[in-house]
């Protein structure tokens, strides 16, 4: 039995379709990422899975329990960390933890080994009101509170949005530790580069799942040949490059431009020649597509 099973799920807000016919399945013990931009439907899907929102059609089961008819049983088994900070700002770190432990009929002591990785970073601030913590520390407290009842499935809605690259890395390290304790993790993010942290990833855009795969697996789903083009002042040339017959898409990736072509005859040398013919002196390398290349391909198809 999968830890999370979503079948033909749909949800609309008035005329806006937030989710259309979404299906996915998360294995027990998996770190599963839901990746897409703002407005793609991530929060809606997560709220339905977390028993907080009713779907219009289809169903979601977590640990075999239906999120609508069996929500009471399910709530004791899942941990949920919403996208916005929702702890009590005027309670201290310690008080918040005790409060959430109490609600779930347990104590901080009983489950301390599960949260200690996160909590030892918070300990110096344990008497500070939660509202006065920095962004990174608020996240860590929210994570501790979501874990305090030792859930079997942990659901996190964009835990890394708005936090810097260092805090993001710390948070992912904590999630890996939690996963190692056997907890299934379902996490959403708008950062494509975080895909590599997950066992599998579902890409979502406009309420539809564009594809599910391992982070490396998306390379095989990319239908074109892909090249990285390095040249000085490449921004000036992007329009000219896009006008080339061989060019399917051309987008900047860090300090190179990723050039996708349908033509299987092209290689790094021939593309270098083509670029030279329009006055661009470039170093060209053939590369494997990443998840962001695949996402851009999907967006460009529509």
């Amino acid at each position: 039995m999968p830890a999370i099973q979503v079948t033909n799920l749909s949800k609309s807000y008035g005329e806006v379709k937030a989710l259309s016919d979404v299906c996915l399945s998360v294995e027990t013990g998996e770190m599963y990422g839901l990746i897409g931009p703002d407005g793609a439907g991530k929060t809606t899907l997560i709220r339905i899975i977390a028993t907080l929102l009713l779907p219009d059609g289809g169903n979601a089961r977590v640990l075999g329990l239906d999120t609508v008819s069996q929500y009471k049983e399910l709530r004791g088994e899942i941990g949920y960390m919403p996208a916005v900070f929702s702890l009590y700002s005027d309670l201290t770190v310690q008080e918040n933890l005790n409060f959430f432990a109490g609600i779930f009929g347990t104590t901080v002591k009983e489950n301390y080994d599960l949260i200690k990785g996160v909590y030892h970073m918070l300990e110096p601030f344990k008497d500070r009101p939660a509202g006065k913590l920095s962004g990174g520390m608020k996240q860590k407290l929210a994570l501790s509170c979501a874990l305090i009842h030792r859930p079997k499935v942990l659901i996190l809605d964009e835990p890394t949005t708005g936090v810097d690259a260092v805090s993001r890395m710390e948070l992912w390290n904590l999630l890996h530790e939690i996963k190692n304790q056997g907890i299934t993790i379902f996490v959403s993010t708008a950062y494509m580069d975080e895909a590599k942290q997950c066992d599998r990833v579902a890409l979502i855009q406009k309420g539809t799942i564009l594809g599910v795969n391992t982070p490396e697996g998306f390379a095989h789903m990319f239908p074109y040949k892909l090249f990285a083009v390095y040249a000085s002042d490449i921004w000036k040339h992007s329009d000219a490059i896009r006008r080339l017959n061989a060019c399917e898409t051309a987008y900047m990736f860090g300090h190179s431009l990723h050039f996708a072509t349908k033509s299987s005859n092209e290689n790094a040398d021939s593309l270098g020649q083509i670029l030279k013919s329009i006055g661009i002196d470039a170093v060209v390398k053939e590369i494997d597509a990443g998840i962001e290349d695949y996402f851009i391909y999907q967006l460009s198809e529509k």
Partner: protein
Amino acid sequence: MKNVIEVENLVKKFGSFVAVNNLTFTVGKGEIFGLLGANGAGKTTTIRMLCGLLSPTSGKISVAGYDAYTQPEQIRANIGYMSQKFSLYSDLTVWENIRFFGGIYGLWGKALKGRALELVEDFKMHDFKDIMVESLPVGWRQRISLAVSLVHKPPVIFLDEPTSGVDPVARRMFWETIHHISSLGTTVIVTTHYMDEAEYCHTALVMVDGKIGALGKPGELKQKYVVETMNELFLSLARNGNTKS
């Protein structure tokens, strides 16, 4: 290159806490200058001083030729500002938004109309200038926000995490627009949490605990610190800092 921003030995203290500790840098005309750093490293404090919203404790700041101590109002009138939260009026058309914000900056009559037409031209907005903002895709709204924040022709524009949560195509479209306005001579100061975007800047300043952790062209910085990406550079610098959070 003529310097549009000059900062020398800039310090800002809040009580005994030194938020910005002896910054010195210059930004030239048309330069895209990335201001990076962990949360709490002093980016926001620096930007607020550069925008004339916060007075420095000591040191020199000049923005667009105006002094931050004596001419903060002139600075505010000569900069553009756009953040991820900056929103257009969604029930006005693109054209109406440009005219509304132009009016706020004191443009009117022929001058306002002329500037609005110029922006439509620069940002290639002919096809949808009469469309309601709410019915446009996110990527376009971002570009219109940027156009609107340039309505008073500021020599410098501040972009505070402009692409947060935006899809990968729209994010890149937006950066192409940034390079376009830079080529037209506007200086751009930008903050971001996407480290691949740090590579898109002409110059990057990585702040660590209120100080300069690294400053230079992304390519040269990567060589100097022997790293493949700006993300690696950022992590190694920020990890050595004492930055909380």
